């Protein structure tokens, strides 16, 4: 995304090129151009641009891609953590509740 970059070297995206069948779905669904198609195989060219939305992994028919995706806002994650520890959630009326 022009003009915006987030933290480096944190992304959990993993890609196994030998598994790739070259369908091109990952390139089609990624809004950050993390993958490009080269010689009928996808190449992972910009891992740090990944926002971990999970679209590529879900749309890869041979499971060549894995990524830990999920809610990405602080209050959503605090609520998630509270629920996991059975402490109830703080409902602030936010979108991720």
């Amino acid at each position, binding site marked *: *995304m*022009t*003009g*915006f*970059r*987030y*933290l*480096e070297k*944190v*992304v*959990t995206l993993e890609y196994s090129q030998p598994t790739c069948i070259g369908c091109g*779905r990952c390139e*089609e*669904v*990624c*809004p*950050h*151009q993390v993958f490009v198609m080269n010689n009928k195989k996808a190449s992972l060219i910009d891992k740090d*641009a*990944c*926002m*971990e*939305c*999970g*679209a590529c992994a*879900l*749309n890869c*028919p041979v499971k060549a891609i894995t990524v*830990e*995706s*999920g*809610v*990405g*806002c*602080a*209050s*959503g*994650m*605090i609520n998630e953590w509270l629920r996991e520890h059975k402490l109830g959630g703080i409902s*602030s*009326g*936010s*979108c*991720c509740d």
Partner: protein
Amino acid sequence: MVPGFIEWLETSIGRVPRIASKLGIFDHLGACKARWGIERMSFIVPPGLYAVGAPCAESPVIVTANYKMTYDIVRQALAGYNVWLLVLETYGINVWCAAGKGTFGTGEVVRRVTSSKLAEIVSHRRLILPILGAPGVAAHQVARRCGFTVSYATIRAADLPEYLDNGMVTTPAMRKLTFTWYERLVLIPVEVVLELKLLAVVSGIILLICTLFNNLSVGLTAFGAYTGAVLSGVALGPLLLPLLPSRSFAVKGAVIGAIWTLIYYLLTGASWNLCTKIAAFLALPAVSAFYTLNFTGCTTYTSRSGVKKEMRIGLSIMGCAVVIAILLLTLGRFA
């Protein structure tokens, strides 16, 4: 009640509502209210199949969410085209957030294709989906389960006409996200409104405590300082995002909070003692930092792992800053 309803279109499987592409005054008013968080969760249209223009068996099928703002933006973009619009049940949530939750998902696509008898209305087997719906939909599963192939067309509904004119081919520009000043600005009202309740409670407590232990003037100063720090973090941080230093949202928020503290100090801080000064410059940026960090949930470029890292490091620093500030204020009061 179907928004934008014109008439019933008779088809082989029954009546389909034909809807207008032109939005009315109430559509604009409703969108405006939703932006301010008013009746936002009931800003909804019934899921199902709709007709835009005069679609036939060969016409494209465009899939969208049943948040009314989304539905309105899509039908407006399709003015002059003859297409089918398949609206999924996303419980009034936009495509991107619903895809993240899975309601704009494989199961709902298959269910809606089946229940609307789409296969009997159109002769082709192709669905056009928004790119930001892909985190919820597995295209190969949709094909396997209902026989329709999925094409992820564009990010923005506004690019749909060009996509349709372009022989349904996505150009690189249609796949590229932006986050312009305007795109950030329209997100801010609802962010502020959602925080108002908590802000009122916390700032009220601050007002009360500071007034009890000092006087009303100190109470009001503290009330203003905290309110300003929250609003800086919620509104100014997101708006000024690209101008603020660092990639970290917490750091960006701390910077805008420090600027706010400096301005507030220059305006009202003539009588602050050293403890108050240090406390203000510790606690207020921490508060702004927390709220700007929260804005990561509204962006489409921050990763969950990045936010986790920021929280792991940031929350403890913010917590320490606030605790030290409270100790300093207590010390300053009783020393």
